[in-house]
């Protein structure tokens, strides 16, 4: 990078360098090799920025960067990268599995006679930000909607009024949760003791 001489007057054209960041790991692509998703990063770069891919992953570039490491360090770095990659892959499949099984419950709770609130739990397991979703529900249904702590220590969204059906549709259509993973429950106040 050349040192630019400092201009006294502010330049009129934007001077900020435009830097490409990896669409997979968010780092500058030259650093992808240090993350756990190196393989995916490489595929992404090849697809979106073939010229940069060519420059970073050409044989010369790889040999040049490795030659500055001692053989021992090279082996260690390789092992390190493999380990990280395996870890990331395992975490990803675990997450996917958990997501496939995670249930969302939409519970209609009778508060008073004919007064209901709808409690939605389990959205966070599908990668949703509860605060944002609660805000969206509030706007969408023009009603009170907030995130509250549950007795079991988790959090759920409580929406004023009976909006179970609309919330079901939203969770499936917008939230992308498979229908089989969403369950509507009715909770009558003062259940007969069973």
């Amino acid at each position, binding site marked *: 990078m050349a040192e630019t001489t400092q201009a006294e007057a502010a330049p009129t054209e*934007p001077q900020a*360098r435009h830097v490409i960041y990896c669409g997979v*790991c968010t780092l500058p692509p030259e650093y992808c090799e240090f993350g756990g998703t190196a393989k995916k990063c490489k595929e992404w770069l090849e697809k979106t920025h073939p010229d940069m891919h060519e420059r970073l992953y050409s044989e010369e570039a790889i040999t040049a960067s490795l030659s500055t490491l001692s053989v021992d360090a090279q082996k260690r770095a390789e092992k390190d990268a493999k380990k990280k990659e395996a870890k990331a892959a395992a975490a990803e499949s675990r997450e996917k599995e958990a997501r496939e099984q995670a249930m969302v419950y939409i519970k209609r709770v009778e508060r008073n006679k004919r007064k209901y609130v709808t409690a939605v739990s389990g959205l966070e397991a599908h990668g949703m930000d509860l605060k944002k979703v609660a805000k969206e529900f509030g706007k969408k249904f023009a009603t009170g909607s907030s995130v509250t702590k549950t007795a079991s220590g988790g959090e759920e969204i409580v929406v004023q009024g009976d909006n179970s059906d609309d919330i079901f549709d939203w969770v499936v259509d917008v939230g992308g949760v498979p229908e089989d993973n969403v369950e509507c429950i009715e909770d009558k106040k003062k259940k007969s003791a069973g």
Partner: protein
Amino acid sequence: MFKKDISAGAKSKVKSSVQRAIRTKIVETYPLLAPHIDEIIPKKSQLDLLKLPDRVSLYALDNTPLFWQHMDDPIIPHLRVIHQFPQCFPRIGIDRGAIRFVLSGATLMAPGLTSAGGRLPDEGGQLKEGDIAVIEAEGKEEACLVGQLRMGTEDIKEKKKGVVMDTGHYLGDGLWKLNID
């Protein structure tokens, strides 16, 4: 500083007088940034202040983090700002072997800078203890770490060991990954 993933706390609008003071402080700390400050923080823009853990204040513009400050320490740019204007900051370089340690949040030690692949300023460009330095890496174009020096560059050259930087902001850390929209 941001080894763990973080989420931002309360967000508030920065008063225009305070925003002016921040701009002044940034230019004082990084004189070479003066010609570009209007591009980074336009005069009529509205900065947001976000509270981060460990008494760090983050200044953001339209949900883009720009600068952060730990208590009364010097104000420090986000790495994306450094990538936009790299020539405006004092830079030193680590060797390739040190990169993976830096990216995992390890303390930066002197040997990473004094080895053949490292780079320290010559006479005239020395940095003092407490100065903010941007850390570049051998064979890489973009900087990977920024923070306050625990040791001046002359000391680093002389002693060749010891802690150089332990509370910086590095590529892929919690601040890098922070989403504030």
